[in-house]
């Protein structure tokens, strides 16, 4: 053991979480709390012929039953304002809320739900993504053209957001190719599936409401309440107790307004806690199913000359935050490759399914799976090793990507070389094993963010931040950044976070952005205190502030360590005069200008700030008799910039890879003919267990990234989820002799593919 090793990272919230003393939202009880329950549509598409809640309201112990008639008549949605809090006239998916009940206890609330009379006149169910695009397809939203929407969106009937990226001349490129490979792939939707089901508690005092909720994005949740209940932000306070995981599933604005409305109507605190089934069917945040059509033209020497992609994304019944998915998926479908002639066309399609929304790297894992499966087909068609093919065509420093962005320092090729070498790629393997390789990419999201830092008279500090911790440790790492700025220890600081009335804005635990943006803010806030401490020390030590160094808990004159004063002493002095308070935000890094591509439906997703890259090389064993694939080893290499918190970072890779294995092999939503989920339970859905988990080798390619986050950090939480399923697919395809064209690649699908005559669909 090295005696100079860096102290181990122990989370500030760790003791709460291992002792059971930490409170999550469902653990909170306020005096007089009522139980909330929702009445769901249960049918996928119907007109409400009759809705009568009078019998439910008459049940003793029922304090309120609300419908759309009882709340402001507001349509909301971040990209398309296509939704109301409760169904109005028409229900469009099974998990749509028709009414909400607040009652004295669970059995009474359940009786009230049963007493609500609702009669439906069925409408045709839009259950297929491609069929929904037909000119005569039934409309999910009859009034789509009247909805408010972001100006940049290109919409037409069931197509809620069309985007294209065009570069060069794709037809001429195809004509110049020696070989053209065409592939079709279909990815099923799947779920974030955090272990904590969501919960909301709301309480009014006067005209102000406090809402404790399981959101990843407290300020976004606040904005949703303000919009739908028509209140100013100053009267809505969102507090997030410990959050039991999110993975994007708890992004956005969900049920905070429903519960607040119930609490207002009943003049009592109200608590909603979801069952696991509700967690599966109701939120507008599940990973979107996508249909893909790829065509790549390649020279005999392995140079890609043209790529054409068509894809259609299942938007579900409402647009939620998926408005940018079409352009994002188009980027992932063209991939981190040098493609001189490119055309990607992407549709975001309304169906009568649960709405899609940002789940850990939205659109990326399934699009990477399809593109990278296709890429192995292309390499095979020209008889080239798929790794050599990738290295030849991958984007690299100074090279131009498919949207015209010329990349500054990036480490994708380093990732490919490291992951494959560490996996033993090329070594002999048993005939039922293979190593599959895939590459992926993901943006860092630059955004406004704020934090305060203060140091009290006893020398202990607080970081008061708008950032949200969903488990990744990103907020926990702020202590390290602030402590380093001030020459103190992380343990000297407590975190005050997840409270919109205490802290300045942050976008939340979304887009892997917490450390990237809030780290910048916290460092800026600490920097103000550093200046104050240096001035105080300079006055005391009769030196210039510029010569004061903060280290090891003391302020010292540079080069004269004996002239020193403890920071705690300076804090004591400040406590009687000008207080030690810093505030920070900083300027978010700007994206490069991009030229050379023409984009329709441009939502700003073609130029990426500090893009992240990855390569996964996965060894898989396939039982040819049953189609059961088992992942034996995963080798990962990531360029996510500088790694600031190594334990946290490796934890993100391990968790992201495991989620990727689940998406590859078992996790997929199955619909019946009526558009209802058939496997809305954990056993039927099947997450990976501890016994399924393979060894995961982790390598970080840390290069000096220009225009990145603090200390050269990029994002990290989503990137490890991008390439795993694709690498598994390529391993299975090698052993099976043919790719599996539907995700998840369940044993049944693998077996069927291997036992189907001729070329699979």
């Amino acid at each position, binding site marked *: 053991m090295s005696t100079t090793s860096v102290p181990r990272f122990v989370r500030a919230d760790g003791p709460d*979480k291992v002792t059971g003393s930490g409170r999550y939202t469902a653990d909170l009880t306020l005096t007089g709390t009522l139980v909330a329950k929702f009445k769901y549509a249960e049918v996928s598409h119907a007109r409400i012929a009759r809705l009568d809640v009078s019998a439910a309201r008459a049940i003793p112990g029922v304090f309120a039953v609300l419908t759309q008639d009882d709340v402001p008549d507001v349509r909301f949605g971040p990209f398309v304002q296509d939704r109301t809090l409760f169904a109005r006239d028409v229900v469009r998916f099974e998990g749509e809320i028709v009414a909400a009940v607040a009652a004295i206890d669970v059995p009474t609330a359940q009786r009230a739900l049963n007493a609500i009379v609702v009669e439906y006149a069925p409408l045709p169910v839009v259950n297929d993504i491609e069929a929904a695009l037909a000119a005569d397809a039934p409309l999910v939203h009859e009034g789509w053209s009247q909805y408010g929407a972001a100006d940049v969106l290109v919409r037409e009937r069931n197509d809620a957001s069309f985007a294209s990226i065009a570069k060069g001349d794709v037809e001429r490129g195809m004509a110049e190719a020696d070989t053209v490979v065409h592939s079709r792939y279909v990815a099923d939707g799947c779920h974030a599936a955090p272990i904590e089901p969501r919960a909301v508690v709301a309480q009014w005092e006067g005209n102000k409401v406090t809402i404790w909720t399981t959101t990843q994005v407290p300020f976004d949740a606040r904005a949703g309440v303000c919009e739908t209940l028509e209140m100013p932000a100053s009267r809505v306070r969102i507090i997030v107790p410990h959050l039991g995981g999110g993975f994007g599933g708890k992004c956005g604005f969900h049920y905070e307004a429903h519960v607040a409305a119930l609490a207002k109507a009943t003049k009592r605190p109200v608590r909603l806690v979801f069952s696991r089934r509700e967690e599966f069917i109701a939120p507008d945040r599940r990973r979107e199913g996508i249909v893909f059509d790829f065509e790549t033209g390649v020279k005999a020497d392995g140079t890609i000359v043209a790529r054409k992609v068509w894809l259609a994304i299942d938007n579900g019944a409402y647009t939620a935050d998926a408005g940018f998915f079409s352009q994002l998926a188009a980027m992932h479908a063209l991939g981190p490759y040098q493609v001189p002639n490119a055309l990607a066309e992407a549709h975001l399609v309304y169906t009568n399914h649960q709405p899609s929304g940002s789940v850990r790297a939205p659109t990326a894992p399934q699009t990477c799976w399809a593109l990278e499966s296709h890429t192995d087909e292309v390499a095979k068609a020209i008889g080239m090793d798929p790794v050599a093919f990738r290295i030849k065509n991958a984007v690299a420093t100074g090279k131009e990507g498919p949207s015209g962005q010329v990349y500054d320092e990036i480490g994708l090729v380093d990732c490919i070389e490291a992951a494959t070498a560490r996996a033993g790629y090329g070594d002999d393997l048993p005939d039922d094993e293979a190593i599959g390789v895939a590459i992926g990419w993901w943006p860092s999201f630059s955004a406004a963010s704020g934090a305060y830092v203060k140091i009290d008279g006893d020398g202990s500090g607080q970081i008061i931040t708008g950032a949200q911790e969903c488990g990744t440790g990103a907020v926990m790492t702020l202590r390290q950044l602030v402590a380093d700025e001030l020459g103190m220890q992380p343990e000297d600081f407590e975190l005050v976070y997840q409270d919109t009335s205490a802290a300045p804005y942050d976008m939340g635990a979304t887009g892997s952005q917490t450390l990237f943006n809030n780290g910048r803010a916290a460092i800026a806030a600490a920097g103000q205190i550093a200046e104050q401490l240096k001035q105080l020390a300079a006055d005391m030590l009769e030196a210039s502030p510029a010569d004061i160094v903060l280290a090891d808990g003391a302020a010292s004159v540079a080069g004269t360590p004996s002239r020193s004063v403890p920071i705690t002493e300076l804090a004591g002095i400040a406590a009687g005069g000008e207080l030690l308070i810093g505030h920070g935000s900083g300027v978010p890094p700007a994206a490069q200008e991009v030229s050379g591509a023409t984009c329709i439906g441009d939502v700003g997703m073609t130029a990426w700030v500090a893009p992240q890259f990855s390569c996964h090389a996965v060894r898989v064993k396939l039982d040819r008799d049953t189609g059961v694939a088992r992942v034996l080893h995963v080798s990962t290499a990531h360029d996510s910039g500088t790694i600031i918190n190594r334990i946290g970072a490796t934890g993100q890779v391990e968790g992201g890879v495991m989620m990727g294995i689940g998406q590859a092999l078992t996790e997929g939503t199955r619909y019946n003919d009526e558009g209802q989920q058939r496997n809305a339970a954990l056993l039927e859905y099947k997450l990976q267990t501890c*016994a399924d988990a393979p060894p995961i080798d982790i390598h970080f390619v840390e290069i000096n990234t220009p225009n990145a986050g603090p200390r050269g950090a990029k994002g990290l939480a989503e990137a490890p989820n991008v390439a795993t399923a694709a690498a598994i697919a390529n391993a299975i395809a090698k052993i099976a002799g043919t790719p599996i064209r539907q995700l998840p690649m369940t044993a049944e699908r693998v077996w069927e593919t291997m036992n189907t005559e001729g070329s699979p669909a």
Partner: protein
Amino acid sequence: MSDIVNYHLTVNGMDYPVNAAQGRNLLSVIRAEVGLTGTKEGCDDCECGACMVLLDGQPVNSCSFLAVQAQGRAITTVEGLQQGDEMHPLQRNILEEGGVQCGFCTPGMLLSATALLERNPSPTEEDVRIGLSGNLCRCTGYAKIVAAVQRTAAELHP
């Protein structure tokens, strides 16, 4: 409410009088009546293990166990792992190894691991993986949790 019954539960060595409907599961009684919320509800269907407690040392999903049937048995929840100010080695090691992220599966995971080490003081990695396979974790990929259990076993039985 004719089905309300009075009985006693022994949780973490302490006796609690309970006055609750006969059909209540152990999870809801521990959380709402005993007042200990460290035990979590993730699925209410024996699928996730977040609600795991020990009954006379045996791991049980408390969501699917009637509270009245736990009378006369020693119930251990996550709150009972720590003795005084000192964390149980499993609690300390899961933190130091980085096996806690969101923390929602952690209580069940810790109790599952406690039971495992009780019946098998020197488990192999595979023993640990199988022993914990009834506890779902979505954050960590399990590697650091397994490392924490193995480290604890090595510390307790060098």
